[in-house]
């Protein structure tokens, strides 16, 4: 909890420091859809339509930005069946949830010319705190782990008007094993809007 408050405070301070060079930054939000993969898919197999992300990017040159990204994706699943244990079994309706909060620093490179639709590629590095919760019957267990993570991405920036731009991208999140939690992978498909 203290770590979460510290990260939030750092984000606010970074934003305040950016005021002096407001024209170099653009800020925005995206709607995210998630497709679980690998161990994440084993836990929650359904495609998710619940997700948001908030981003700030500082223009470093005609073709490059650096920035920060903070997202929240929710993946869930409901399955009926029996789970075998070492010396027993449990049968019921299993409801599983993954709440992922990726916190990234990132850099992007843009192709094409300013003023037009510009494809770009980028890399994100940071952590993903993930809360995984399983419910069966009247019982629930949950676990939260902070995973070291990365996320390459590719997308397009679309000019929409004065200082307003839209962007569409796909981002592949991979989170390393953290304690007893296995590695995680999922892809987000994002559509959003940003302004200076």
């Amino acid at each position: 909890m203290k770590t979460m408050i510290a990260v939030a405070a750092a984000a606010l301070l970074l934003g305040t420091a950016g005021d002096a060079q407001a024209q170099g930054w653009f800020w925005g939000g995206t709607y995210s859809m998630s497709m679980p993969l690998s161990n994440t898919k084993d836990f929650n197999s359904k495609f998710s339509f619940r997700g948001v992300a908030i981003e700030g990017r500082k223009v470093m040159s005609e073709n490059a930005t650096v920035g920060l990204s903070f997202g929240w994706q929710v993946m869930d699943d409901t399955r009926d069946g029996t789970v075998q244990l070492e010396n027993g079994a449990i049968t019921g309706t299993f409801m599983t949830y993954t709440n992922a909060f990726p916190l990234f620093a990132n850099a992007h490179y843009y192709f094409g010319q300013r003023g037009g639709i510009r494809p770009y590629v980028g890399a994100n590095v940071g952590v993903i705190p993930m809360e995984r919760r399983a419910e069966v019957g009247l019982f629930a267990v949950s676990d939260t782990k902070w995973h070291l993570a990365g996320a390459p991405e590719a997308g397009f920036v679309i000019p929409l008007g004065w200082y307003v731009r839209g962007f569409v991208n796909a981002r592949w999140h991979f989170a390393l094993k953290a304690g007893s939690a296995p590695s995680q992978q999922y892809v987000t498909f994002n559509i959003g809007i940003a302004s200076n």
Partner: protein
Amino acid sequence: MKKLVLIGAALLLGAGCYPGEVTSIDQLDLVATVRNPDFGFGSVGSFYLPDTIVQLNEGEQGAIDIDRSHDDEILAKVRGKLLALGWSELDEGDIDNGLVPDIAVLNLVSASQNTTWWVGYPGGCWDPYWCWGWGWPPSVGVSTYSAGTYFVVMGDAAGVTTPGANDDLAGVWGGVMDGVLSSNSASNFTRLLSGIDQMFTQSPYLSGSGN
């Protein structure tokens, strides 16, 4: 715009979303079984089944009265499952004559009333995590529900030379069904019978296979 975005980011930290919905009461039913891995069920040939279902929490705080009108049918279901394993039943007369069953099977039940609380958000905001309006204070509600648990427990009676009420038996298998009790007693009974079926379905080793 920038400060609003950052404040929103700070608020999102620590949030969690659990969008799953329970649409019928039987989705909250759970059947679990556990076995002693060192006990070989292939050697079991007989069992003793008392004709009483014992309520574990009778008289305790939170305990509720249980409909006992289906006890005979429930015991008959358990008896049928045991006989289907190829085991023969010893009755009290056999016990009095000195016969010792391989397994003693106990049926136990508990039922209690539970209280839970919830927080709701006004303004037609059906999902608080996606609504940004924090202008009105949330409402808090309290609800109660009844839950029941049924146990079938097998104890190893081998080595008991003088069977009596005070014998301690080592547990070798346990089955439990847990769920919400509805106001419809017939529904509760039907779900319990299905749960007993499932206990034995997910325990194929009781027949001696795989031991």
